[in-house]
């Protein structure tokens, strides 16, 4: 399957869950419409015989200025496919479900998302600080509105 066929296959397979976003230049990028079913969806794409998306490239949070987004980039080692999907989250009470049961490697990515963005991860098991100092008390630094006394922005040239 090439990129277009992969996108078509995925849209046919999960018509209610996925919506193709127009990026065009690279691998298919989807908007996932049912964040509550993330674990089921991930398991479905991993176990699908045609897809076998067994490799989580990365997973991260994004602060767009209006809301949060969570992006997953998945790939298949056996079938050589790759695509990404994301879903938006509100600022208030942002929470996602852990996908460690599908890809154990998601552990640290989720921990990082929690630590830097403050997006809570359900069923994670070990949600503790690890990138920032242990006594960090200045909030979630990757948010766009974050600021601190010794934080200097680069002046515009």
């Amino acid at each position, binding site marked *: 399957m090439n990129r277009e066929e992969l996108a078509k296959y995925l849209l046919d397979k999960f018509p209610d869950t996925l919506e193709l976003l127009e990026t065009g230049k690279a691998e298919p990028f989807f908007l996932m419409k049912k964040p509550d079913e993330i674990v089921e969806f991930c398991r479905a794409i991993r176990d699908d015989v045609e897809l076998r998306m067994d490799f989580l490239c990365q997973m991260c949070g994004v602060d767009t200025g209006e809301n949060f987004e969570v992006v997953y980039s998945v790939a298949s080692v056996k079938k050589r496919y790759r695509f990404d999907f994301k879903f938006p989250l509100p600022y208030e009470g942002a929470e996602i479900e852990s996908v460690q049961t599908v890809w154990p490697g998601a552990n640290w990515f989720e921990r990082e998302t929690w630590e830097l963005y403050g997006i809570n991860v359900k069923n994670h098991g070990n949600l503790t600080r690890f990138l920032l100092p242990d006594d960090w008390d200045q909030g979630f630094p990757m948010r766009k509105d*974050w600021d601190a006394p010794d934080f200097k922005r680069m002046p515009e040239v």
Partner: protein
Amino acid sequence: MGIIKKVPVFLDKVPGGGIITTSLDTIFNYSQASSLWYLLFGTACCAIELMATGASRYDFDRLGMIFRASPRQSDLIIAAGTITKKMGPRLRLLYDQMAEPRYVIAMGGCTCGGGPFYYDSYAVEKGIDHIVPVDVYIPGCPPRPESLLEGCLNLQKKVKTQKIKDWS
């Protein structure tokens, strides 16, 4: 070190005693300068250049500098690489564990003053002189091995100006 502190003071009063203290100064300083054992303390990019300086082409050993893994046995920290806020207390701990006399070389822009991470970074310590006293600053990102060697020679010059009277 009570007696050692008093001896030079006493010798200064004796006629000709100054000769003894100055020649002791020379011997000790020369020895200290030609045997600066450095602690293996590399955190980031500069550590690779530190390794390259220890390797065949540049060869730290020519200056009598060898690495020690334990801070108790080393005379010099070459702080090679970015010191983050999480790492800062550890650097101070290592410095405190070292035996006097001890020296610090700040290698690279990050340790001199934040370097490329001065702006927009919430995690980087902006210069290690907030944490430990620094003897020699070596700018560069990362500095070439030649400039590191130059920094070490400058430190040797500094070591050679010490006085026995100032020992703590």
